[in-house]
């Protein structure tokens, strides 16, 4: 039978990504370039409507002062709002506006279980799972059952760890990577040589995970911090399909 001749066990693993919310800060060369381009554009640009209006009003004010109040009759009728007043109003509004802080994780003292961590890079979900005798940090994985697509396995893995109503979007049916390993000789039998883990990617749509997480050992980790938790072979295969 076809099932008996396959010595490899199949697993589907899900790499859940939270996309960055803020752009990364510019590097030094980028900043210098941006400043230069802005200056060039400012010098090349024409006056906008608001600026033309402001200049005209300044001219009129000056003329009125010099010509010793000749057109005083005109003044009370027009000129309810001057461009200068508008500008001051807008500046006051700007000062009263407070932007949200960019560095929230610094406040939370490197709490790696919260989603509000690094807002400018991708965050991945890592879970502690028991494989054989060891407890390892892995991307959430679940064994494949016959009659199920591999993508379905990966989605099942996600839902076992995070509950059913996760708004995550899987983009395609094809896996992104594969990790193959053989069991240690003690456990190896003819039917059970090793395991293959297929990786899928999903993007988190909403950032609130109000459902309780089943296992307490979960982490949201950036690509650089993966090295602290994953084993080297596994890490190599995972790094191949991670952007940035």
């Amino acid at each position, binding site marked *: 039978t076809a099932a008996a001749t396959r010595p490899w066990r199949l697993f589907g693993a899900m790499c859940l990504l939270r*996309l960055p919310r*803020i*752009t990364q800060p510019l590097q030094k060369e980028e900043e210098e370039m941006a400043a230069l381009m802005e200056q060039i554009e400012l010098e090349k640009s024409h006056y906008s409507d608001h600026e033309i209006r402001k200049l005209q009003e300044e001219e009129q004010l000056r003329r009125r002062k010099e010509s010793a109040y000749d057109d005083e009759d005109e003044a009370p009728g027009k000129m309810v709002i001057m461009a200068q007043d508008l500008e001051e109003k807008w500046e006051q509004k700007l000062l009263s506006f407070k932007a949200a802080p960019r560095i929230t994780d610094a406040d939370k003292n490197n709490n790696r279980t919260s989603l509000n961590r690094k807002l400018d890079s*991708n965050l991945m979900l890592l879970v502690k799972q028991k494989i054989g005798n060891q407890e390892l940090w892995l991307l959430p994985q679940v064994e494949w059952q016959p009659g199920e697509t591999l993508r379905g396995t990966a989605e099942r893995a996600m839902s076992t760890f995070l509950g059913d109503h996760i708004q995550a979007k899987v*983009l*395609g049916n*094809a896996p992104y990577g594969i990790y193959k390993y053989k069991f240690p000789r003690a456990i190896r039998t003819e039917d059970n040589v090793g395991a293959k883990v297929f990786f899928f*990617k999903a993007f988190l749509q909403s950032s609130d995970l109000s459902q309780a997480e089943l296992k307490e050992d979960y982490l949201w980790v950036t690509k650089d911090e993966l090295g602290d938790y994953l084993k080297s072979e596994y890490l190599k295969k995972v790094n191949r399909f991670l*952007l*940035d």
Partner: protein
Amino acid sequence: ALVSCHRHYRSRPTHGIGRYKYLLPKEAPKKKRDRVQMKEIDVGTEHEYGDINIQMTSYDMCLVEHFAQYVHRLCNRLAVRVKESYAMPTKTNEVLFLEERGSKMQLDAVLTTHQRVVQISGLSSTFAPILLEAIQSNQPEGVHLLVKEHTEADFKSRLKSRPELEELLAQMS
């Protein structure tokens, strides 16, 4: 003499030596009305998407245009066929504040919404998630991204409506 002045005059045997237009196939004469639709291939079992529209909207025109340029060039580099790359007309919104302290004052702000569309065809389903992820991760702030399949409604939205024609049609039926 560095320049030869032998014009290929009509009586010479070399008259008409550079002609080539008569060798090319005949072009159909261009009508005023544009061809309505290209054929649409859909997934099914074919592992290929049909026409896909990548629509980018934002209030800031420079950002949107640069992002559209970036997407277009990315598709060129990745050998994805770009069918069309066009802009939808800008929509102007006036924002009026109604302050209810004392007299109702109205402060105005004028916002313009710009939209650019890049139309792609022949995207294979194994490559699509990678392209989408690349575009998503390089999205600038303030730009909304929408990727959807091209439909007739999308095509019709680009054309202007003709009220007289519609009136006549309504009168006829």
